[in-house]
Every structure is written in C-alpha cells, then in structure tokens.
C-alpha cells in the first residue's frame, strides 16, 4: 500500500529530482494545512518554484543579499569564541546558571560534512549527554533526522543547548531585532514554528534510544539583536502550541495516500526537462494538470507559498470570494463566488433552503447601498 503511494507521488513529480523537506518547508505546513495542491506537491518533492514559473507565474520571493549577509554576520558574532556572547546572554538576560560550558562543533566530523556522518555523531553525543555520560552543553549545528512521509529529512538547528534545567533547548538565532523587549510577532511566529520542527526531530532521535519527550523542552530560546545594536539578547518563547500543530500536520502527511488516490491516474507535474535543462512541457498542459488538484487559496499564501500567484489567478478567474480574504469571506458564509453572492443579492438567482437567510440579508444590503448611492450626491447625511 505504502509503496503504491510512493509510486504515485514519484509519478506526480515526474523526472525531476526529489526535493526534500527543510525546516522552512515543514514550518510552512502550519500555514493553510487544508490545501491539497500544496500537500501533494510537497509530499511528492516537486519543485514548486520551477512549476509555478513554468506555468507562467514566477515567484517574486527571494532574499536580499543585505539580509543574508546580516543574518550570517549576526550568527557568526553570537557563536564566536565558543559561543562566548551566547553564554553571556544566557547567563545575564535569561538568568541561567550555567556552571561549566562544553562547546561541541558539529558542522563536520573530522572534516567529513556529510549529513549521515554528522547525524550519527550528533545522535551519539546527544544520547550520551541525556544519559549523563557526556558533559556537553552547547551543540553547534547538530544534524537531526526525521522521517516525513517515509522519507528521511535532515534538519540542522542553529544550536542546541543542554543543562538549561537539565533539558535540551533548541536555540534559534535570528537577525530581526528585539526592540524594547518586543519583536515583530509574524517573525517570532515563523522562527518558533521552524524551531518546533527541530524539537520534534530531536525528540524522535532521543526516542530511538528510549529517552522520553520530556528531555526536550518545548520552550525555545530565541536569540536576536537587542534594539538597534549588534549585541544579542535572548527570550524564552513557548512553542507548545506550534509543536502540537506541526506534529498533527506531520501525521497528515502519512495519510497523503488518501488525497493522492482521488487524483487521476495519469496526472503528472513533470516539466519534461530536456538535456539542455529547458522545460519542454507546454505551459497550458502543465496548468491543466495543476487544475486537477483542488487548491485552497488565501491572500496570505502570497507571502509564503510559491504556487500562490498561480492559485490567485485561478481564484480570480472563477470570481472566488477567496480573492477578497477572510474579512469579506466571513460575512458571506456558505457562498463561494462573487457571482453567486451578487446573483442572490439582486434576486437573479433563487436561494436554496440553506441560503435563504443569507440571501435575504444580501438583498437587504444591496438595497441599502442602492438607496444611499441613488440619492443625489449620496447625501442623506445632512445634519
């Protein structure tokens, strides 16, 4: 059964190499989890950016070189000299008693940087630490492994700290500022979700050695620049909710077969890339294939999903209310398109039993707008 699902997923992806999940793409599962199109594309390891671009909707995402440089410089600063700055912050800002600090660099193992080797070494060290056989405190870039939908995903947290209350804590280093103890909520949320993936992976790794989930805290340590300076500050962030949500999304991936079995047998998102690396598949044919999979577009997809511009064009084409976003949508429960809403409002469509109440409210709203706009100058407000 499982093999059959994998075969179908490989078929959907076609000839392109499989893309594995990253902490970022796992974190993205939390946004819009009910979208089938994204679930199928992600589970099959398809290259969403390439597919969207070939279908005529290139993604304008990308990071500014300034942002990348700043992020790297800040992380280097925090970790310089065996994490001297980080230890200062943990002690001074978070008031932790870290008696002695042993720092382990896991960026490579004796010069070997392959994920498998690093992962084995990471597991060996962390398990021994948890069992009290090894005195480690800070682990720089450990390599964790997580099975997602039957495939191995390697995840690399910035840092894992032990001995904060004798539990492992995921430390996430970000370069957005914490100004007067406050940071941008959206950025904190993204960082926390990403860290949740590490918490889950770390727990899975320790579970293999028979160590319970309590060994890994679901409070993460966020390290970020203080105010407008370069010097770091830190805060504890409660990630319980996001760990739970992400865990649920991961179990959904296991059930991807249910979604795939509803799709046509021959469906594929293959771009038919030729030897020169150019996609040969006609764009309309690709778009038609994508149209076979139901997508759930929401305006905030635009800020995180590569397919969003494609989905928006589809939503616009059928006058879906999704285009207008949740504030309008929630006013019109049970109605999916602008055409239907306006049809009911103008009495051109007959409402079924479920829609009767909504239709009456819409007719009234339409009458009110017409009444006001029909007056000369839209007045009636003369006091």
């Amino acid at each position: 059964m499982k093999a059959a699902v994998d075969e179908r997923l490989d078929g959907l992806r076609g000839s392109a190499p499989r893309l594995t999940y990253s902490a970022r793409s796992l974190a993205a599962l939390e946004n819009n989890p009910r979208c089938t199109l994204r679930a199928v594309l992600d589970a099959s390891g398809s290259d969403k950016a390439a597919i969207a671009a070939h279908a005529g909707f290139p993604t304008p995402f990308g990071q500014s070189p300034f942002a990348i440089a700043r992020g790297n410089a800040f992380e280097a600063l925090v970790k310089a000299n065996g994490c001297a700055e980080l230890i200062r912050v943990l002690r001074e800002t978070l008031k932790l008693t870290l008696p002695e600090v042993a720092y382990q660099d896991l960026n490579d193992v004796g010069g070997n940087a392959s994920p498998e080797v690093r992962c084995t070494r990471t597991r060996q060290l962390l398990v021994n630490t948890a069992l009290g056989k090894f005195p480690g405190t800070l682990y720089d870039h450990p390599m964790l492994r997580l099975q997602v939908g039957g495939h191995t995903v390697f995840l690399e947290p910035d840092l894992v700290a032990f001995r904060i209350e004798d539990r492992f804590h995921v430390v996430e280093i970000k370069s957005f500022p914490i100004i007067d103890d406050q940071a941008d909520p959206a950025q904190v949320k993204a960082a926390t979700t990403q860290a949740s993936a590490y918490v889950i992976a770390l727990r899975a790794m320790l579970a293999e050695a028979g160590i319970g989930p309590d060994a890994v805290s679901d409070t993460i340590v966020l390290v970020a620049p203080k105010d407008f300076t370069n010097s770091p500050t830190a805060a504890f962030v409660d990630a319980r909710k996001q760990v739970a949500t992400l865990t649920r999304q991961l179990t959904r991936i296991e059930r991807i077969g249910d979604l795939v079995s509803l799709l046509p047998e021959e469906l594929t998102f293959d771009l038919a890339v030729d030897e020169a690396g150019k996609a040969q598949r006609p764009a309309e044919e690709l778009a038609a294939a994508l149209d076979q999979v139901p997508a759930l577009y929401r305006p905030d997809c635009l800020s995180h999903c590569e397919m969003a511009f494609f989905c928006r064009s589809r939503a616009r084409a059928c006058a879906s209310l999704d285009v207008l976003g949740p504030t309008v949508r929630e006013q019109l429960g049970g109605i999916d398109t602008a055409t239907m809403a306006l049809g009911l409002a103008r009495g051109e469509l007959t409402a079924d039993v479920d829609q009767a109440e909504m239709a009456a409210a819409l007719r009234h709203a339409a009458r009110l707008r017409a009444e006001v706009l029909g007056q000369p100058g839209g007045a009636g407000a003369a006091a």
Partner: protein
Amino acid sequence: MSKVSAMAHLEAMEQMRAVPLTVFRHRRLSIKPLVIVPLTMAGEAGAPLAAMAGTARTAPKLLVVDQPRNRDQRFAFAADLGRIVMDYINSHRLHRRDVTSRGDGPTSRYSDAPQILVPNPGGIKVLADLGRMCRFRKTDGDYPVQPVVPLLGMWLTFLAESAEQAGTSMLLPVTGMLGEHWATGQSVMEDQNLASIMGWIAPADGVSVEQAIADAENPAVCPPAGPATSPEFDKTYLAPAVKRFDDARALGDPTAITAAETDLRELIGEQIKPTWRLMWSAISLLRAVPEAPRTAARFERDLASFTAYSDYQDEGALPQRKRDAAIGAARRLSRLERAQADFEADMAFDDSLVLADLRSVGEAFAGTVTAAETDRVVTTAKNRRVPRPRITVTTDDPVRLAPGVILISPSMPNNHKALIISSAPDEESTQITVEITGGMGRGVVPQKGTVPSLGQRIAYLPDPGWRPTPVFPEPDSIPWTHSSLADEDPDTDTDAAEGWGDAD
C-alpha cells in the same frame, strides 16, 4: 466590515474597478502635507537607506545614506531628515488662537497642525523606529549627535503614537486613507501596496486595471513603495553600488567617492520617484472626495494634543519612555478605546454608507414616520410639563435595538434625542415607536422642525453618549503590586551610548 461593505468589494470585483465604500473622506487632508517616502535596508534593524520628502509634488528633497551600516552616516541622515521635519513642524507653531476651555487646560491653541503622509503602514513603522533610535541620543558625551536628532526622535515618537489613535490626522498612511474610502476587488493585504490600490482606483491612461495591478507587483515595472526595496534590485544594483562606494572610500579617492555617491543617488532616485508621483496622485484623488462634517471637530482634538505636546517641548521635554508603566498603559488603552468608539460613531452619523453598515446588522435603522403623536405632553416628577412626542417609524431594517436605548439622528437637528419605547415586527418590516426626549427647545410646545412629521424619512442610531473620563491613581499612590523598579525613569545615559548597527 458588514454585508454592505462586503457588497462594495463584490461590486468592485465584478466591475474590475474600485467603488466607493463611504460617501465622505473621514480624515482631514492638510492643504500642505509633508510627504515622506522612507526606504530601509533589508535585514538591518530599521536602518534608513533613503527618504524623499517635501510639501509639494515638485522639487522634493532626496536623502540617501551611502553606506547604511555606517553609524555616522545614519546620524547625518537623521539630522538632515530632522531639519526637514522640524522646519515643517515649526511652521505650524506660529499662530495661536484663544479657546474657551473647561478646567485648567491651555487657553490658546495653534491654529494648524502638521500632517505627515507616508505610503503604507510600514512607513509609519519606519518613522516610529527612527523616533525610538533618535530620542535617547545625547548632544554631548561619547557619541554626540546634532541637537536636531533627539528632537526629531521625540517628535516622531509623538506622531507615531498619535497615529495609533483612531480619527487622528497628524501621521497617516495613504494606502489606509484610500482603503477607507474605496473598496477594491482584492484583499486588505494587497491594498497595502500603493501602486496596486491606485491601479484599482485610477489606473494610468490606456492601462486596464488588470494590467495596472499586475504591474504593481512587478518590481521591475513598479518599484515597491517601501519601506524595503525589492530583493532583486538589492542584488543587481544596490549591493554593487554600495560596494563601489565602500571601495572608493577605502582608497580615499575623492573623485571616485563623488562618482559613487552620484551613482547611488541616481539609482535610489529612480526607485523612489514612481512612489513619489503616486503619492501626490493619491492625494489629489483624496482631495476630490468631500470631507465629512465631523472631521473638523476631530481636528480640534488634534490641535489640542499638538499644542499640548508642543508646549511640553518648549518647557524642555524628556524623551518618551520605552515601555508604559501600569498606569500609563491603562490610560493609553482607555484613550485608544474611546477614540475608536467615538470615531466609529462620528462616521456613522456623518456618512449614510457607514450608517448602512450599522443598519444591515440591526444596530441602526431608517424608515418612514407612519404615526405621530406630536402634541404629547407629560408631567415630570418635578411637576413640570414637558413635551414628549411619540412617533412610529416603519423600517425594513432588521432592527436589534431593545426598548430603552437612547438614539440620535443624522436627519434631525444636532441635539435631537429619542428613546425606544417598543418595537413590533410586522412581516417584512418593523414598527418602532420612539419618544423624543431632547432637542425641542425649552417650551411646552416643541420648536418648529424639531419633531419628525408624518411621512418623513428618518434615520436613528444609538447615542454613543457621554462617558466620564476615567480617573487613574497619581504616580505617588500606585499600589506596590503595580509598580516596579523598571517603572522609574528610563536611564537615558546608557541608551545614548548604545551602538547602532555595524559601526565600521
């Protein structure tokens, strides 16, 4: 948002053009606003990259930071922007007029207040951050700055705080003003793109709305209105140009430095100018929308708070604290909530489309007077005979107001007050009997035109009413549970020395 507003968005979607959401513009638009388009460097904590500023479409000033990571250049930028902003603010501190005030408030007020307009909410955030960065700086000591820098910091903080309060007009995002008056066929998030919302309202000649909103999202055609520049622009143009400047400075070659500076200015000028032009087109569109009657009264409150802060500055102000203490936070919350409620009530009273929003959810109603007992007189407990006419209004609105609710009416003279006596649903319509309780003059016979007559169209909405100003404890009588050492005045000395990005 109600179904009436939702209907406007549906119409916009169907017709592929923006449609009005309100009859009026509810924000004051100064005859001479100061427009600022700020740009920041990606990744840095609110590091300014450039700003274009001016009070007219022509001859704006362009300020550019050649190396945003350089501390001295950032402060030079803050000082330059500070001079522009302070000149503008000071030009509103010339004329005062007397006001009658209750209590011991000031007896005179400035006759005009500044208005700074930025493209989007991100622009306000940039100014607020800049205010936070500048207000604790010192003009002496280790890292001295020009005197205008902390002054700019305090004023920007004042303006950014005023922008959080509903109905104020001293610092506003233009996308917000456009979105308040026009409904588009896209989401709120997309409406925050200035070029995009302008594409819905007034696409350029010969350009369809479809094309205009597609262009708005293409940074190659339409540079973003900021605060961040497009990553593609950063990669292809900005990063190399900044590097050329750094190299020239490292070599100490004055000709090369000047050349690199000129390059950067031109590059950034090209990015910022399209937004500058859009800002002024948006302003003239907004100017063409009639201003709501009650905007003037709200502006008086702006004038009062501007005058109060200005006088505080003249007495030698301290920078605003970083975080509110318990009392300050409670006071601020109370002020913001009242402002929000007042603004909503004002808009509904002025604007029949906003009123329609309330009517569609049953929180207001309008209809025809179908019965009237205009000569009804009652005797009060004080044995005084007063007119208490009763009328019955028949409405199609789904009224949800209960008997006993006090009403005001935009269709009647200003101090008209009424009380709901009963409401009786009658198939499709509802008959509501109200008793007129105020606004009829002092006599036993109501003055002419103060009582609705039979057959008249009339609208009623609940009276937001007068609420007492909440009283908060004085700083010296705060219970120990609500105070802490952190509530003491901020230690500004350490803040003056705090680093600012990568000082090189």
